[in-house]
C-alpha cells in the first residue's frame, strides 16, 4: 500500500523537476491522444515541439514565439502575484479585452493625426482599462467580501459582449464597407506597436521582459513581495505581522489587470491589428496555465510562456500539415495543467511503502 507522508518543507529538487516531468507526461498522453486521432504520435509531437524551432521554415516560425509568448508572459506575471497571495484573478481574459478596447479607442480618437505621443497614451489607456476592469472584483471583495473568482470570471462574458458591441458600433471602421471591426492600426503609423515586424519584435515583447525583471525584484528584494509571499504561505502569520489584506487585494488584482490590459493593447495594435468580435485568442485563460507551469516564479513564467507559445505555433503547423484539429491543441494545453497539479504532489509529499491505513 502506498502511503503519502507530508514533507516538513517542500522539496527544492522536485520544485524544479515537476514542470519538466509534467511536460514529459503531457507529451506521452498527447501522443496517445494523437494516435487515437489517427496521426503518427512521434511525427505529431515533433511537429509541435521541434519544427517551429529547427525545421527548414523555422526562420518564419521563430519570430512567432515572441508574438505569442509576450501576451502570455505579461498576463501570467500579473496573475502570479495574486496567485501567490491566494487572490484568484481568473478574469484576465476580460481585462485583456477591455485594455484592448480602451487603448485602441484612444488611438482611433486621434486618427488620422500623426504624433509621437499617441502610442504611449494608448499604452496608458490600455493599462488603465484593464486596471479599472480588475478593480470591480477587487473593490467588491474588499467592501463586501464577494468571491473574486466568480466576479472576475463573469466579467469576462460581459467584456466579450462589450467587445462585440464596440466592433459593431462605436469603434467600427467607417470606411469598412459595413464589415464589423475597427480600422486596422497596422496602417496607422502612430498607433502601431511593431518595432521590427519580421523579427516578431513589438513593444509588448519589451514590456513582457520588463515585467519579468520587475516581478523578480519585487518578489525577492521588496517588502511588498515579501508580504505577498507571506500571505500565501502563512496567512495567519501575515496578519500578525501587520500585512493589510485589503491593500494586498487591491495591489495584486490591480497589477494583474493593468498588465492584462496592456497585453490586450499591444496585441490589438500589433499582431491582431484591429478590434474585431473575436480578436481575443484566449490568452487570458492560457496564461493561468503559464503561471502555474512557471511555478509562479518570474523566470519560470518566462520559460513556460515560451513553451506554451511553442504549442500554439506547433499546433498551427500540425493543423495545416497533419490536419490535427485545433481543439486537440487546446486539450493538450489543458492536460499540461492537469499533469502539473498531479505531479506537484511529489514536492509536498514523500511516497512511502507503508502498512494499510487504519481509518
Amino acid at each position, binding site marked *: 500500500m502506498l502511503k503519502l507522508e*507530508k514533507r516538513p518543507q517542500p522539496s527544492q529538487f522536485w520544485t524544479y523537476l515537476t514542470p519538466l516531468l509534467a511536460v514529459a507526461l503531457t507529451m506521452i498522453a498527447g501522443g496517445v491522444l494523437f494516435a487515437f486521432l489517427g496521426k503518427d504520435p512521434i511525427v505529431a509531437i515533433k511537429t509541435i515541439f521541434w519544427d517551429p524551432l529547427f525545421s527548414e521554415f523555422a526562420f518564419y516560425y521563430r519570430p512567432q514565439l515572441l508574438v505569442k509568448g509576450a501576451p502570455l508572459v505579461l498576463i501570467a506575471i500579473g496573475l502570479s502575484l495574486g496567485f501567490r497571495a491566494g487572490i484568484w484573478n481568473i478574469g484576465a481574459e476580460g481585462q485583456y479585452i477591455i485594455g484592448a478596447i480602451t487603448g485602441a479607442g484612444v488611438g482611433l480618437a486621434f486618427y488620422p493625426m500623426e504624433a509621437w505621443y499617441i502610442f504611449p497614451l494608448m499604452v496608458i489607456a490600455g493599462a488603465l482599462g484593464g486596471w479599472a476592469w480588475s478593480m470591480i472584483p477587487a473593490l*467588491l471583495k474588499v467592501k463586501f467580501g464577494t468571491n473574486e473568482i466568480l466576479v472576475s470570471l*463573469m466579467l469576462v462574458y460581459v467584456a466579450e459582449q462589450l467587445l462585440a458591441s464596440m466592433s459593431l458600433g462605436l469603434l467600427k471602421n467607417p470606411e469598412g464597407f459595413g464589415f464589423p471591426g475597427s480600422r486596422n492600426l497596422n496602417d496607422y503609423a502612430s498607433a502601431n506597436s511593431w518595432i521590427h515586424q519580421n523579427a516578431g519584435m513589438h513593444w509588448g515583447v519589451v514590456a513582457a521582459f520588463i515585467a519579468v525583471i520587475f516581478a523578480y525584484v519585487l518578489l525577492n528584494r521588496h517588502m511588498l513581495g515579501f508580504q505577498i509571499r507571506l500571505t500565501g504561505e502563512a496567512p495567519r502569520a501575515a496578519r500578525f505581522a501587520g500585512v493589510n489584506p485589503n491593500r494586498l487585494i487591491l495591489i495584486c488584482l490591480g497589477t494583474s489587470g493593468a498588465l492584462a490590459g496592456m497585453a490586450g493593447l499591444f496585441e490589438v495594435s500589433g499582431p491582431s491589428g484591429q478590434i474585431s468580435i473575436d480578436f481575443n485568442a484566449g490568452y487570458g485563460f492560457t496564461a*493561468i496555465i503559464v503561471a502555474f507551469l512557471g511555478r509562479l516564479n518570474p523566470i519560470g513564467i518566462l520559460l513556460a510562456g515560451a513553451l506554451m507559445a511553442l504549442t500554439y505555433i506547433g499546433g498551427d503547423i500540425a493543423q495545416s500539415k497533419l490536419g490535427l484539429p485545433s481543439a486537440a491543441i*487546446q486539450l493538450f494545453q489543458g492536460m499540461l495543467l492537469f499533469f502539473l497539479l498531479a505531479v506537484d504532489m511529489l514536492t509536498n509529499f514523500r511516497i512511502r511503502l507503508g502498512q494499510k491505513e487504519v481509518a
Partner: protein
Amino acid sequence: MDLSSINPILLLASLIVAATPLLLAAIGELVVEKAGVLNLGVEGMMITGAICGFAIAVNTGSPVVGLIAAAGGGAVLSLLFALLTQFAMANQVASGLSLTLFGLGLSALIGQDYQGVKPPAFPKGDIPVLSDIPVLGPILFSQDFVVYLAFFLTLGVWVMLKYSRAGLILRAVGENHDAAHALGYKVVRIRVLAILFGGACAGLGGAYISLIRVPQWTEGMTAGIGWIALALVVFASWKPWRVLLGACLFGGVSVLQLNLQAAGVAIPVEYLAMSPYLITIIVLVIMSADRSRAPASLGKGFHAGS
C-alpha cells in the same frame, strides 16, 4: 418594439426549461460543497456532458441513453478532479480551473464532427389531467421528464441532507473533516462520492442544454452557465430550496432578455446578453454579506497523516 408579442405563459414555460440545467448543475455542486470540496470545474463538466450526451444520442438515436452517457461523462471528468484534490492533494481552485480548461478542449475535440447535426427529438411528458389545467398546466405539467427529475433531485437532496444519517455524515465531513475523521468516517471516500455525484449532475445539466433546450451542438455552448451555477450555490446559502428559487430567477432573466431581444427593444442586443452575468454579480454582492452558512472546511484539503 412590440412587447405584446411576448406570451407570458410561453415565457414562464421556457423559464423552467432555462432553469433546469442550472438547477441540475447547482444542486450537484451544493452536495459537493456541503462535503467541504470546492469544485470550480462545473463549466468543464457541463460542456463535457453536453457533448457526450449529444454524441451518444445521435449515434444511438435515443436521447435517454444520451442523458445517461452525459451523466457518466461528467462523473468521469469529476473523477479526475477527485484524483487531483483528494489523492494528489492539489489545490482545489487550480484543479477546478484545469478541469474547466480541459473540458472545453475535450468537448471541442469530440464535437467537431457534430456541428450542425440534429439530435433525436426528446418526448414531451404531458402529465395526464394536470396538464389540462389552464395556465398552470402548460407551465408546470407539460414539460419533459428531466424537468421533473431535476425537481425531485432537489427534493431528494434536501431530505437526504436534512433528515438522513448519510446527510448528517456528509455535512460533518464538510464542517470539520478532522472531527469526522476522528469519529471514524472515511473523509476521502465520502468526498469522492460527493464529487462524482456533482459531476454526474453537471453532465446531465449540460446534456439538457445540448439535447433539449437548444437542441444542437456548438463549441462552448454552455457559455458560463456552469459558473452561474457556482454563484447560485453561494446565492442559495447552501440550501437546496433556495437553489431552486435562484435557478428560476436566473432562468427568468435569461429567458426575458432573449424575449426582449426578439421583441426588438431599443437596448442593443449585446447589452441585453450581458444581463444574466451582471445580475449574477449583483446577487453575489448582496449575498456575500452573510458567509456564515458556508461549510467550515470548504476548499481545505484533507490528509489523514497530517
